């Protein structure tokens, strides 16, 4: 007997992959059901190492799945529910066609429902796993919460998304978990820290809904994602509320119960209610303190003391950030988008209100004397109070990102705002060029410097203008003055250096050459460099070269900036000159 001939693709890569069509056949599902199942279970198509073998010699590029993945799907009880759906649809279709309304009603009342709890548990075995994957979930839910009812999206989905997102925002407010905000042209980027996990999400700008062409995005597919994410977000909310000692589900007095009707009647009313809900604290289950602030251990086995110190400073900063707006009262003008501002201010302990007559949920009046800040986005106002600052909304965002209350003077109503910088850039990039405005954001000293510089710039400009005025009268005198000031400065510098010398000389025991130390250090450094293993030498060299190159780039950019500023200054001067001449 000859051994049985081995068939092609019975082992190896050919046996590990399955085309989508084969998977459909194996699972006995329609394509739509299969896609839905894959999304719910988190099974993704794969790319094989050798496509020809994986496709069993078939030409073209096909969507392939792992055989193991499909076997895993086969055990899913939800498949039966999907089949139930199929049968249900057939029955309903038939009843409707023959106008058998009695059975139609019976079927519709008994429709099958998908239960996704176990899938959430399965995909995210622990709460932290779920938090880790929250970015996508939140962004999609926030996006769908802005949608009206559209084809291919279940009718109640956007309402559910609205409810869950509001609940989540409340949890963030209560936990004071927000860390960073960024207003981009796309939407608001928020970053929060929950249980040590960094969560980022995008909330679209609140403008009217823009219709989408179906050719670009598959709505059905996205709505399936949202279907899973709503369940996931619901359970996360439940857990978050319980860990924060809050009642779940929270009840908002301003929000009417059936918000479906409201949203149909008037979108504006709905939005204002949603914002109003954010302005009231949710009820707590117990008055006891929440989780105590975690103290950082002083004894750490791995970290160096510097790192521990750094972590301590960071913790202190975050503690400060949590109570950033504590004791401040904000009044929001009607032209300012309220939802992001209310959320942010409430997150950091501030109090907010708005015009009582325009929207529901206002907690205090505009005439309240205790209001410290009024947020306005218009060039000027007729009636102004002396007791409060009139600022532009960007002050709130920038203060949060800077983790301290920034000086208000640059954000006054009608001022040209400083640029709104992204907080998502790695702050430890010492080898990159950082524009002075951004440096000022993270370093108060640099900010003062910048202010001074600008003031001096302005002053010097003014001086120059005055000079020009005086020029006709007597130019020599002014020149002398300038020289004098310069001389004085030089003298001062000279004195300071002299003093230092005097201080050193009396206790001179041995003569220390000032450059000797640095020279020795350099030599030592070179020796250490030689000790680098042969294995790592090349890496080291390339590292150093890279460092040098980056330093050069920084230098170049700084130079460019300097030149640019000088040029601008000159232009300004010229402009003023021209204006003066015309007048």
């Amino acid at each position: 007997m000859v051994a049985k001939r081995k068939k092609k693709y019975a082992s190896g890569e050919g046996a590990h992959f399955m085309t989508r069509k084969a998977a459909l056949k194996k699972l006995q599902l329609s394509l739509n059901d299969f896609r839905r199942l894959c999304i719910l279970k988190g099974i993704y198509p794969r790319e094989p190492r050798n496509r020809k073998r994986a496709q069993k010699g078939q030409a073209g590029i096909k969507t392939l799945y792992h055989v193991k993945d499909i076997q895993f799907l086969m055990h899913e009880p939800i498949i039966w529910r999907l089949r139930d759906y199929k049968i249900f649809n057939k029955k309903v279709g038939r009843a409707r066609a023959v106008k058998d309304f009695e059975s139609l009603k019976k079927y519709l009342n008994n429709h099958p429902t998908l239960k996704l709890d176990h899938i959430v548990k399965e995909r995210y075995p622990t709460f932290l796993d779920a938090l880790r994957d929250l970015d996508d979930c939140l962004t999609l839910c926030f996006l769908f919460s802005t949608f009206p009812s559209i084809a291919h999206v279940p009718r109640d989905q956007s309402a559910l998304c609205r409810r869950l997102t509001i609940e989540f925002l409340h949890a963030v407010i209560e936990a004071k978990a927000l860390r960073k905000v960024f207003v981009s042209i796309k939407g608001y980027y928020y970053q929060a820290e929950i249980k040590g996990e960094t969560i980022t999400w995008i909330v679209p700008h609140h403008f009217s809904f823009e219709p989408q062409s179906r050719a670009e995005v598959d709505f059905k597919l996205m709505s399936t994602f949202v279907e899973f994410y709503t369940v996931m977000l619901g359970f996360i909310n439940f857990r978050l509320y319980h860990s924060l000692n809050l009642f779940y589900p929270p009840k908002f007095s301003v929000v009417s119960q059936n918000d479906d009707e409201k949203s149909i009647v008037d979108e504006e009313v709905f939005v204002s209610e949603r914002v109003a809900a954010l302005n009231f604290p949710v009820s707590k289950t117990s008055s006891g303190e929440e989780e105590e602030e975690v103290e950082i251990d002083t004894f750490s086995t791995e970290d160096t003391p510097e790192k521990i110190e750094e972590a301590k400073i960071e913790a202190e900063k975050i503690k400060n950030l949590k109570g950033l707006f504590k004791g401040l009262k904000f009044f929001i003008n009607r032209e300012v988008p309220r939802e992001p501002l209310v959320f942010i201010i409430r997150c950091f302990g501030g109090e907010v209100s708005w015009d009582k007559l325009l929207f529901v949920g206002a907690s205090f009046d505009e005439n309240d004397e205790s209001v410290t800040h009024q947020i306005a986005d218009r060039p000027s106002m007729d009636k102004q109070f002396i007791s409060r600052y009139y600022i532009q909304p960007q002050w709130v965002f920038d203060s949060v990102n800077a983790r301290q209350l920034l000086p208000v003077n640059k954000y006054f109503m009608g001022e040209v705002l400083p640029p709104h910088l992204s907080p998502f850039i790695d702050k430890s990039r010492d080898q990159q060029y950082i524009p002075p405005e951004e440096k000022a954001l993270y370093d108060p000293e640099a900010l003062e410097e910048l202010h001074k510089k600008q003031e001096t710039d302005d002053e010097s400009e003014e001086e120059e203008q005055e000079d020009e005025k005086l020029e006709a009268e007597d130019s020599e005198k002014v020149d002398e003055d300038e020289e004098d000031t310069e001389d004085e400065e030089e003298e001062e510098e000279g004195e300071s250096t002299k003093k230092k010398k005097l201080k050193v000389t009396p206790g001179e025991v041995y003569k220390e050459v000032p450059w000797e130390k640095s020279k020795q250090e350099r030599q030592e450094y070179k020796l250490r460099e030689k000790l680098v293993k042969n294995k790592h030498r090349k890496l080291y060299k390339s590292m150093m070269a890279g460092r040098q190159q980056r330093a050069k780039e920084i230098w170049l950019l700084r130079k460019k900036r300097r030149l640019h500023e000088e040029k601008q200054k000159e232009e300004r001067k010229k402009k003023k000159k021209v204006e003066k001449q015309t007048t």
Partner: protein
Amino acid sequence: MAKPVMKKKKRVSKKSKLSWRKHVNINDVEEFLEDQRLEERLGPPLETLTDDQLFKVDVEPSKQTVSSKERKRKRFLEPPRCFAVLQPHTKVPDPIRKRNRVRTKEERKNDLIKKKEAENRAKGIWKHRELQAIRDQKVNEERKQNDPKRGEFVQNIWDADDQLTENNGWFSKNTVKHNLAGTGKIRKTVKDLKKIKSSVLPTIEMPHPGMSYNPSYDDHQDLLKTVAEKEMKIIKEEEHLNRVTRDMFSKVTAKKRDSMWLQEMSQGLQSASTNDNDNESDSEYKALNPPTKNKKKTLQQRRKQQEQMQLELLKRAAKLSKKKISDIHQLKTLNKQIDKTESKAKILRERRLKNLLLKKKEPKRLSAIKFEETELDFNMGPDITGNLRSLKKEGNLLTERFKSLQKRNVIEPSVRRRRKKSKVKVYTKPGHKEDWITTVAR
């Protein structure tokens, strides 16, 4: 000339139905019958009726206006309008006097049984089937209440006690298996899905600082630069494609093209003039391949060939041995060569590794359609107003999310398929054709 005079036939054949219809006048009979039928339908003619039958003395006072509520109530008491169809619409009596009707189940029941059942029900004795129905209803209602409702979250699915069985480092597998043997809890082995991340890319890409609604000058310029670079790349590619395809061909007029085509197509055909020449020269048959000749080598030739071959082999062996000796002296260069190839291989290996890392960041090829990245969102300089009120929104978040899912290999890139509308051939069924008048009933 005798003029043909049409005579009226005295007798006509009444053999067929057709001829009967043609020649017999039955109008009076038909009219009479028609009258009778009408009378049956509508009642006797008015002339025959007496005054009492025709008129009625109005004794009741004219009704006052009824409220809409009362009217509604009254209408509710009337038989529903849908039953009007069941009423006879003629006065023609039913030809079958005693029409049979299937009595209902209730009507068919014996009076004694009816009485007994009523007694039982009063006593509270129910039939088994009825009891079953009640029980079923209860079960159904309970099930419906327990059915998961959308948007209702009442439990913590990450319960603490569940951790006892799964993913607990303290118990060995066997311990759990042993202790949970009787509990009915099956230890499910679930693939660690979280370990298989479809992509190394982050879920939400951090925005470029130039995308701020009020960006700093440098950041905005940087963003514009990247956008412009991308665009330039696309333009360059397009230009290249045009150069390589469209611009490679010279343009000709339609007339010239036709003539060229004719020329090209008539290539290889024998023209009339050459044909004549061939005919003149060719007189006898000539095969294209001449027949082979079986020419044998002589013995001497064979021997010489053999000798040459031997000599050649010897020469080759001598050369090889000589090379071996010389190679010993060339060891250094050989070593160098080996080093060179090795270093080359190393460089290649490194490069491959680097490429692999780079490739990880690119979307995988998951379907026949290639992934296309969306363009970066940016505001042009004049669009930036610097305040939140007059901000110009850019980009679509839904599209961005969709593309991000594709980029992270979660879903395969696809295009919307348009279902082809099948061509429907329209025709009328033979039975519905209009020509039945001419064919069937003449």
